[in-house]
């Protein structure tokens, strides 16, 4: 009991730890609650409805059919997808550049074939679906919405889905689509954790007061930490990529060099984040407590679990401030979509900008003397 009592007394006196113990689980639960409450929805798709419709004459009566329009209106009322009508070609371009998840085309004879099949002819109508297969959740949700609309329109018989995968028509395994997210997760967690421990250890070792008396500015000290941690970060990045690509054979359609560069830049961002956060942690315990806050919040908000488009409006805005969101896009873009620097320049600039912002915040908040 003496040990238990001593630990509880210590914790009770560490007000920051108590604060984090309450704040972190509460925040994580709130974030996950909001993010995971719904399912994937509002996924942007383009539909090119070329269906000319079909008129059936029976005696003097005639009946008009346009299944394309019917399916279109079904999809428009389905909150899983957000439909835009445009040409199939522009839809494919939209999927290729990441603006849309799928482009769907109904052919001109879509209704005609379905009516004739209904009349007993052994023919099938077809529709072409050009889809982003880099995220299984999104792919499944779009296809489920389409199946529902077909079912509701005419019982879902006689339509052949001509499914084409975007990005060189490569089908991705679960491992392929997981590895980019795992890279950003590992880089976030390990780099922040190692960096925080390295920096905070100096404070707890009692060396900092001595450093304050030396001809070493706080900026030089931060720069020293950052360069050392960058070397460690590059090593960690190398290990992650080696295991992901070399051992598990994850697919990489883009440049390995560009991927490494992006991963190192993201590691640098996390280093600067840790350098900034280290200014607020007075011991290793407090530093370590910050890691799950960053990792779990990033996981929830970056679209790693469910797409950002499915979040409530204000959470979507919040997600745009999460660095892992851009890292996921960057790594997915290079690995799965084969993007070159032209396509991922924006992510590079944003990640670089956030890294710089964290470093500036670290420089502003760093202590260069003993507390008053």
């Amino acid at each position, binding site marked *: 009991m003496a040990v238990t009592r001593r630990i509880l007394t210590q914790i009770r006196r560490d007000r920051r730890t108590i604060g984090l113990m309450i704040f972190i689980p509460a925040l994580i639960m709130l974030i996950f609650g909001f993010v995971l409450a719904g399912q994937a929805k509002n996924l942007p798709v383009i539909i090119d409805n070329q269906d000319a419709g079909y008129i059936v004459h029976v005696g003097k009566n005639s009946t008009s059919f346009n299944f394309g329009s019917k399916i279109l209106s079904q999809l428009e009322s389905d909150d899983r997808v957000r439909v835009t009508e445009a040409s199939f070609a522009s839809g494919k371009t939209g999927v290729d550049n990441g603006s849309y998840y799928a482009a769907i085309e109904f052919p001109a004879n879509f209704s005609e074939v379905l009516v004739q099949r209904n009349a007993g002819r052994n023919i099938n109508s077809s529709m072409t679906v050009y889809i982003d297969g880099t995220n299984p959740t999104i792919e499944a949700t779009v296809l489920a919405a389409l199946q529902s609309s077909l079912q509701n329109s005419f019982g879902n018989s006689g339509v052949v889905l001509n499914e084409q995968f975007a990005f060189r028509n490569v089908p991705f395994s679960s491992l392929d689509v997981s590895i980019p997210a795992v890279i950003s997760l590992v880089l976030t967690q390990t780099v922040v954790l190692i960096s925080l421990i390295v920096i905070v250890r100096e404070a707890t*070792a009692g060396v900092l007061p001595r450093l*304050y008396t*030396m001809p*070493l500015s706080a900026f030089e000290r931060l720069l020293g930490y950052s360069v050392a941690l960058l070397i460690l970060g590059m090593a960690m990045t190398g290990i992650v990529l080696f295991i992901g690509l070399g051992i598990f054979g994850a697919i990489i359609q883009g440049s390995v060099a560009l991927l490494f560069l992006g991963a190192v830049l993201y590691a640098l961002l996390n280093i600067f984040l840790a350098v900034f956060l280290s200014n607020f942690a007075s011991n290793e315990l407090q530093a370590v407590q910050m890691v799950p806050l960053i990792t779990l919040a990033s996981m929830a908000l970056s679209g790693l679990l469910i797409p950002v488009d499915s979040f409530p409006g204000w959470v979507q805005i919040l997600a745009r401030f999460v660095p892992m969101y851009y890292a996921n896009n960057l790594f997915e873009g290079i690995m799965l979509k084969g993007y070159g620097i032209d396509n991922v320049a924006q992510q590079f600039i944003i990640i670089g900008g956030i890294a710089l912002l964290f470093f500036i915040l670290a*420089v*502003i908040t*760093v202590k260069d*003397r003993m507390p*008053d």
Partner: protein
Amino acid sequence: MLVSLIILRLHPSKNYIQQEKMCCIGKSASKGGSSVTNSSAQAEETVIETLNLIKVYKEGKIKAVDHLNLKIDRGEIYALIGSNGSGKTTTINMLTGSLFPTSGNIQVLGLQVPKQRRMVANQIGVAPQDYALYTDLTVEQNIRFFANLYGMKKTQFLKRLDELLPILRLNERRKTTISNLSGGMKRRVSIACALVHEPKIVFFDEATVGIDPVLRAFFWDYFRSLAETGLTIVLTSHVMDEAERADRIGLMRTGKLIEEGTPQEIKQRHSALSIEQVFLKLSEGVVADE
């Protein structure tokens, strides 16, 4: 404003370059622009001077140092003596620029502290009360790290290391990790780190606390030999009898300098046989940090 704040952080000494040009280091330094030093005769010898130095810690509103006026000359061994909590370490921290005073003036080697502390830093050495060493590095790696921060070149450092290690009896422990050293050895390494760049002033905070009498005697002999070369030594101790080996003593109590002079002068003034007797007399039996 943000940009200027960042620039200030990037080059903390930039603001003081102009002032540095106006006052040079050492003997002639204080002649220009010193608000503390009044006569050039004093400035020739005085290397540390404080005027009405006050430190009030925000937490608990504790007045740790109260209107402290110090004047320490070049080549002196000056011992700040007092019981625990009397303000000795706070004073040292302010003199070395690692803690900012609440009010008052500090001048070290003719430069304002903390304003010009980065320029002072190159010319002082500090051995803090706790060893302040990297316990997972070796003796040589620790000393090398601090030498690098002082901008020493490799050959310069190795030459100095070959001088220091035998004197401090650390030659055999050169490659030993700090965590495997005894307390006395760690103290010697800490002192080596403070002396590696041949500073003009060295601050030893409780340097002789917790070490055996033989090593303590060795330290005092070593301090004396250093002072003879012109090095100024400011040390703190709560062991009264050993302070009698200093050139001058400042007795501190509740942040105030309650007595100052050579050990002989102080003992004569109070008709006491030892400094400890003087201190007990002045303390009137009250424990300082109560």
